[in-house]
């Protein structure tokens, strides 16, 4: 589960601009990949196609051998429930408490409130923000807000976790911290793809780096085999995150 394959994926916008050209690549289930490239290289477009916020102009995206371009309006929400998404500007709802923000995906899935509460606390523990449930996002620091966004993305224990510039406006220490968090989710078997232009940082992570420029894959470097660790326990349950 969590396997993603792109076959000659091209995305051309209405204005004729081609943001992705004939991209063919594969992400194994449980793998972790950094997507890098200059501004405008097509990283965000790539991720948008994966959550089917948009569809390829040509080519196919297969997730667990299902062409997501062919998902019906009824199936699409169910597909999205298996994917966690983190953005640079975290998309938190300002008028809702931290708890309600993180609980959103669970409530949408119709989970009972008791289980929701348990999962939200587990997820907040993972990002070291347990105790802040009752606060509004605006009461938190930028780094904390970003971690709330991550907590929301992983609260459903998705098979696939996508992040677009998750460390965009954080200082280097915090960025490293966030990247480590993603590594931990990957360690329990989640397929993780993180788009980031912070080359220096991601080079130290020892993971696969897929380099896009002008909508094409210009290099694809495998990670250190030593860092590819087998699945352990569920980080949303217990893992402590080092600082």
């Amino acid at each position, binding site marked *: 589960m969590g396997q993603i394959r792109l076959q000659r994926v091209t995305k051309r916008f209405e204005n004729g601009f081609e943001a992705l050209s004939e991209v063919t690549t594969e992400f194994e289930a449980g793998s972790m990949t950094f997507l890098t490239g200059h501004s405008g290289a097509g990283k965000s477009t790539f991720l948008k196609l994966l959550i089917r*916020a948009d569809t390829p102009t040509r080519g196919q995206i297969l997730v667990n051998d299902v062409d997501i371009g062919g998902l019906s*309006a009824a199936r699409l*929400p169910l*597909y999205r429930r298996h994917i966690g998404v983190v953005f640079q500007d975290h*998309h938190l709802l300002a008028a809702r408490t931290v708890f309600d923000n993180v609980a*959103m995906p669970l409530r*949408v*899935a119709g989970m009972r409130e008791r289980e929701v509460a348990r999962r939200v606390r587990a997820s907040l523990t993972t990002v070291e923000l347990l105790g802040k449930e009752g606060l509004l996002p605006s009461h938190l620091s930028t780094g904390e807000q970003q971690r709330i966004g991550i907590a929301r993305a992983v609260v459903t224990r998705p098979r696939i976790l996508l992040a677009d510039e998750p460390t965009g406006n954080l200082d280097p220490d915090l960025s490293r911290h966030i990247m480590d968090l993603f590594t931990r989710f990957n360690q329990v078997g989640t397929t993780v793809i993180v788009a980031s232009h912070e080359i220096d940082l991601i080079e130290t992570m020892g993971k696969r780096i897929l380099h896009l420029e002008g909508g094409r894959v210009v290099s694809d470097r495998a990670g250190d085999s030593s860092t590819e660790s087998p699945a352990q326990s569920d980080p949303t349950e217990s893992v402590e995150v080092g600082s």
Partner: protein
Amino acid sequence: MVGIALALPAGLWILQVNMDEMSAQWEGRPGLSVYFTLQADNASVAAVQGYLEDQQNIDRVELTTAKDALEEFKTYSGLGSALDLLGSNPLPASLQARFAQSIGPIEVELLINETQAFAGVAEVVVEKTWLERLNELSRVVSRLGAMLAVLFGLGAVLVTASSVRLAIEARLDELRVLKLVGATPGQVRRPFLYFGAIYGFGGGVVAAMLIAITILVIEPPLQGLLGSYQQTLDLAGFGPLFLTVLLLVGSGLGILGALMAVRQRVRDLEVV
């Protein structure tokens, strides 16, 4: 807005129901006047009088002979001496028949035709009282009401739709996140459909209040007006059933409006 939209057609409906009621229980009944030719003899007049008196639909028949008519005219016009100069009586005899309560328009038509067929009858005139005007008005009102109901119903839907559109714009961020985390279109729509239903229901309540106030305002003068005709006023139509229908229609229109607004907007909403 929705309240006013609903109040007008609903109010007109009540007005129409009451006009029908009023004409049904009308007692200042109209009648028929039969005018004879100047040449008509007493036998022809008596024949018609006999015919009318035999009719079940007619309560009472009064004869005004040519002589009576002339006397009456002299008395009321003050032109008595002038008429004396004419030598012969220029006024015809006539019969005034008064309809029974139960008479309907078809029977009236039949009576006119039959009466007209008698020898010596010059003209049969139905006294168009305001009963008939009321009936005609009632028909006009009911048509107007139907048209207004369609128009204002449409208006109510559009008004709700635009309110819901505003509500959607105010919550776009939330809708995006909902879609992103896998909410179904139904889940995204639901709160707005509730909103529309409540909005429409509220409109129904306002409409009911507007109508109630209107009734309160027009009832005393109307009572006075009708009182002089020995008519009792008992406004019909404004009952529990009417209220229920009004509120249901209001809510239904609200939901319809909300659906219109939310459908496309939610489908086309970009999640990121």
